[in-house]
C-alpha cells in the first residue's frame, strides 16, 4: 500500500487514503469490541462474587441469633444452633494447621535453601505442586484407608490429619517463594559473621520472610476451614456435643452439607447461617493475609 502512495498519483492516493481510513476504522472497531467483551467478562466474574455474597447475606443474616452460638445442633423443629459445629471446625482447623505448618515450613526451607538443582529437590517441588491442586476428596479417602479403617473408626484426629495434608503444600509454596526473595547477600553477611547456616536461615531468612510466611499460613487456614469432602471420610460429623478427638467430630462445612440437603426449613436456615459465617470468616482471613501483612512480592 505504501508503494502505491509513493507513486504519488493523486486519484490512487485518495483511494489509498480512503482504504487506510477504512482499515484503521475496522481495526479500532475490532479493538473496541474486544475491549468491551473483556470488560464485560470482568464484570461477569465480579457479578458472580457479588451474587454469592449477596445471597449469603440475604438468606443467612436473618437467621443469626445468639442461640446459633450457644446451642448445639438439635433435631429438626426444636431450634438449636451450630455451637458444636463451630467448635469442631475450630479445633480441627487449628490442629490440622499446627501439624501441617512445621512440615510445610521445613519442606519450603529445604527447597529454597538446600535443594538447588538437585533431582530430589525438583521432585519434591513438583509433587508438592501437584498435591496443591489434587482433589481434596482423595486426601480424605487416603486418610480413611491408612488411619480410619485400621485404627478404629472415624475421629476428630483423622480429620485433623486430612487437613494437615492439605495445609502442607500451601505452606511449602509460599515459604519457598518468600525465601527465594531474600537476597543472597543477607545470607552471606550472616555466614561471614560466623553464624552457622541453620542460624542464618532461622534468624535472618525467616525473620526477613516472616510476613510472607505468615500470609501462607493464613491462606492455608482459610483453605482448610472450608474443606468439606476430606472430612466426610475422616471426622464424619457429629450432631452431638463432642470435643473428644478420638470420636467423630462435627464441623461447620459437613453440618452445612447435611443441613442444606435436608427437607426441613429450620435446618436449611441454619445451613445458610453456617454458610454466611464460614464464608465471611474465610474471606476475612484472605483480606487480612493480603492487606495487613502485605508480603513484599
Amino acid at each position, binding site marked *: 500500500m505504501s508503494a502505491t502512495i509513493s507513486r504519488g498519483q493523486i486519484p490512487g492516493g485518495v483511494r489509498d487514503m480512503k482504504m487506510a481510513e477504512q482499515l484503521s476504522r475496522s481495526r479500532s472497531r475490532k479493538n473496541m469490541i474486544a475491549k468491551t467483551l473483556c470488560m464485560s467478562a470482568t464484570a461477569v466474574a465480579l457479578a458472580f462474587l457479588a451474587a454469592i455474597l449477596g445471597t449469603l447475606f440475604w438468606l443467612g443474616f436473618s437467621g443469626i441469633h445468639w442461640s446459633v452460638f450457644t446451642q448445639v445442633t438439635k433435631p429438626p423443629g426444636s431450634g438449636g444452633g451450630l455451637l458444636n459445629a463451630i467448635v469442631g471446625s475450630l479445633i480441627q482447623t487449628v490442629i490440622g494447621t499446627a501439624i501441617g505448618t512445621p512440615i510445610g515450613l521445613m519442606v519450603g526451607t529445604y527447597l529454597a535453601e538446600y535443594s538447588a538443582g538437585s533431582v530430589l529437590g525438583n521432585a519434591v517441588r513438583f509433587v508438592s505442586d501437584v498435591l496443591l491442586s489434587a482433589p481434596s476428596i482423595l486426601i480424605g479417602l487416603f486418610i480413611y484407608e491408612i488411619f480410619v479403617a485400621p485404627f478404629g473408626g472415624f475421629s476428630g484426629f483423622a480429620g485433623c490429619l486430612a487437613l494437615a495434608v492439605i495445609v502442607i503444600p500451601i505452606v511449602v509454596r509460599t515459604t519457598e517463594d518468600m525465601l527465594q526473595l531474600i537476597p543472597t547477600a543477607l*545470607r552471606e553477611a550472616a555466614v561471614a559473621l560466623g553464624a552457622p547456616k541453620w542460624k542464618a536461615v532461622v534468624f535472618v531468612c525467616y525473620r526477613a520472610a516472616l510476613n510472607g510466611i505468615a500470609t501462607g499460613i493464613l491462606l492455608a487456614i482459610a483453605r482448610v476451614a472450608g474443606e*468439606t469432602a476430606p472430612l466426610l471420610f475422616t471426622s464424619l460429623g457429629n450432631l452431638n456435643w463432642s470435643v473428644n478427638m478420638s470420636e467423630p467430630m462435627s464441623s461447620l462445612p459437613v453440618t452445612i452439607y447435611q443441613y442444606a440437603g435436608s427437607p426441613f426449613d429450620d435446618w436449611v436456615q441454619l445451613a445458610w447461617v453456617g454458610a454466611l459465617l*464460614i464464608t465471611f470468616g474465610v474471606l476475612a482471613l484472605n483480606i487480612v493475609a493480603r492487606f495487613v501483612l502485605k508480603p513484599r512480592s
Partner: protein
Amino acid sequence: MSQSAIAASPARPKGKSSSLGDLIFATIAKSAGVLVLVILSAIIISLFIGGLPAFRAYGPNFLINPDWDPVNQIFGAAVPIYGTLITAVLAIVMAVPLAFGSAFYLTEMAPDWFRRPVGTAIELLAAVPSIIYGMWGFFIVVPIMGDYIQPFLIDNLGDLPMIGALFQGPAFGTGILTSALILAIMILPFIAATMRDVFMTVPPVFKESAYGVGCTTWEVMRSIVLPYTRVSVVGGIMLGLGRALGETMAVTFVIGNTNRISTSLFGPGNTIASIVALEFPESPAGSLKLSALLALGFLLFVISFIVLAISRFMLRTKVKS
C-alpha cells in the same frame, strides 16, 4: 544457588556445635521434603490397594461397564468417568473466555488504582469454599436454570438437526450443564490469576514496540502477548481443568446424581467425586462397593495427576522466572 556460595566459604571456624546444628537442621529439612514424596506415593498406593478387589473382580471391564447396581454387586466406572470428563471440559469451555477477558482487562486496560481491588475480588472468588458454591448452586442457580435458561435453550436449540439432542428433555434445573456452570465459576479465578501472572511476564519493551508502530491494545494482545505466553496460558487452563476434575461438593449438590449417560446436557449424571461422596456412607468397610469407590478414587487421582503434571510442565518456564 545461595548455598553454593555459602558452602564455598570454608574459612569459617568449624565449631562442633554449629556443624552439628547444621547437620540436624539440614536433615530435618531434607526428611520433610522426602515426607512429601512419601505422602504422594502413599496416596496412590493406598487407593490402588483399596481398589484392588474391584479391579480383580471386574478386570478392564470396570472402565467400560456403565452399570452401578449395589443389589447385584455389579459396579462399573464408565458413567462417573464420563460425567467427570464432560463436566470438566464444559466448565473449561465456559470459564476460559471469561478468565481470558478478566486477565486481559486486568493487565492491559484497567487503570492502576482499579487493578488491585478487582484482582483481589477475583482472588476472593477462588477463596469461597466449594460447599458454598454447591449450596448457592442448588438454591439459586438450579431454579433459574430450570425456570428460564433450560426452557429457553430447549425452545430455541432443541429442534436443530445436529446439536438439538444436546438441548432436549425435561428442564429440572439440575444436570450436567448446571454442574459445568458452577464448576466454571469456581475455576474461573484460578485460570484468570494464572493468565494475569503470565501476561505480566511479557517484557514491556515488546509491547511498547508494538504500540510504537501503531498497534491497538487488542492487536498487542493477539500478536505479542498471546504468542509469547501461549504455552503458559494452556498450562493455566490445564490447571483449571485439574481443579474441575476433582471438585466434589459443588457438583454433588447440582448434578442430579443418577448413574446414567444421557445425550442431553440437561440430563442428570454423576462424577467420580460425587459418587464417592454420596455412596460412601452406604459402603461398609471391606465391601466390594467400598473397593469400587476406592478404585474410582484411584482413577480420579491418575487422571488429575496427569493433567496437573502437564500443567506444571507448561507453566514451569514462564511463571518461575
